[in-house]
């Protein structure tokens, strides 16, 4: 009855021991330690959780934003904007945590055999994704501040203004926000296309190592 618990404990100690000794350990213990931290060839559970939660939020966010911007003036439009803004601030908070986690962890290596330009494109694509995950909420925040709309994130946290109320600023930054969203859609298409290309054409582990139910 107790053996699984003891076994888990052993693996946990094993994980600690590895850092100190840097020696060998069983495949089973590596399985458990790599549940959390990234390694040079796998993503840990927190990195996967960040990836998929934010993927879902970002897709929902794009849909909310497109609907909010195009809906006729009505309570529904205001509701859509409310959820779009709240989700945006949630994404901004999550991307800050995600960046900290990424900086504190190794990043799995790209598969060998990729051309230099492919590596450069992959790095640039991910850099742009992170930049947009920050720039989109921040420009949205600027639009909200400049348009002087009172807003509490999920009805709870009042969002402080980061710029003074000014209609031309609101209009201009709203254009920038829309342009960045279009860029995000393009880079996301490349991101998803790239993952599928790695999986079906290159037949490497780039896609599968990010799947939540797989542990290479």
């Amino acid at each position, binding site marked *: 009855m107790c053996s699984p618990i003891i076994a888990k404990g052993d693996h946990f100690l094993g994980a600690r021991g590895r850092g100190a000794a840097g020696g060998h350990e069983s495949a089973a213990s590596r399985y458990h330690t790599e549940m959390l931290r990234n390694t040079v060839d796998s993503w840990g559970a927190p990195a996967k959780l960040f990836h998929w939660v934010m993927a879902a939020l970002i897709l929902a966010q794009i849909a909310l934003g497109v609907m909010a911007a195009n809906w006729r003036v*009505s*309570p529904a439009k*205001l509701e859509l904007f*409310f959820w779009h803004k709240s989700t945006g601030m949630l994404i901004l908070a999550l991307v800050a945590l995600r960046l900290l986690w990424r900086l504190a962890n190794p990043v799995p290596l790209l598969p060998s055999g990729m051309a230099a330009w492919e590596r450069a494109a992959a790095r640039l694509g991910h850099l742009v994704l992170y930049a947009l995950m920050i720039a989109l909420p921040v420009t949205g925040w600027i639009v909200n501040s400049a348009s002087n*709309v*009172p*807003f*509490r994130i999920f*009805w709870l946290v009042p969002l402080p203004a980061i710029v003074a*109320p000014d209609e031309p600023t609101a209009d201009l930054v709203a254009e920038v926000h829309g342009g960045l969203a279009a860029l995000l859609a393009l880079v996301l298409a490349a991101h998803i296309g790239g993952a599928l290309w790695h999986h079906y054409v290159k037949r490497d582990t780039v896609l599968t190592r990010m799947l939540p139910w797989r542990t290479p």
Partner: protein
Amino acid sequence: MTKIPSLLWLCGLLLTGSAFAADWKMDPAGSKLEFVATFEKTPAPGEFKEFDARLRFDPDKPAGGSLDVTIKITSADMNIPDVNKEIRGKDWFDYAGFPQAEFHSTDLRRDGKRYVARGTLTLKGVKQPVEVPFSWTASADGAVMEGELLLSRGAFGIGLGEWKATDTIGPDVKVKFKVKLRKG
């Protein structure tokens, strides 16, 4: 000969009616009429930039006084350009149909340290009985009356059609006023 006694009698009637109630005029520079709606449970403040209050009032003997207020509805400003455009329309204030709101008291009374003006508010063509509580602060050059009351926007047809729903834009609107008065 009969004219003088009757005039005196008329004066006496007016004096007993109003006791020592003085006439007060509003100083627009020191006065403010604000309203606070709610949007997604968050206060959304606005202001009527033009309004006028006339008061006959003796703080020691409020009965017999009167308060009359006219509000230029078209001077509403909610600090958000898109909202300011929206509230002009028929669903909201209907600037074209009802450019002015009025309050006329029927009686004034003391309520503890404060006062209450009871009367009728005409807003967007709808007449509703309203109680306006206020404090009175006398100063060397005049007085300041301040107070706030809660109005239900639905009672005045402000927010029609799908805007009647109160989950996005709340049902209550707080009205806050500070009126600087001079004797005159």
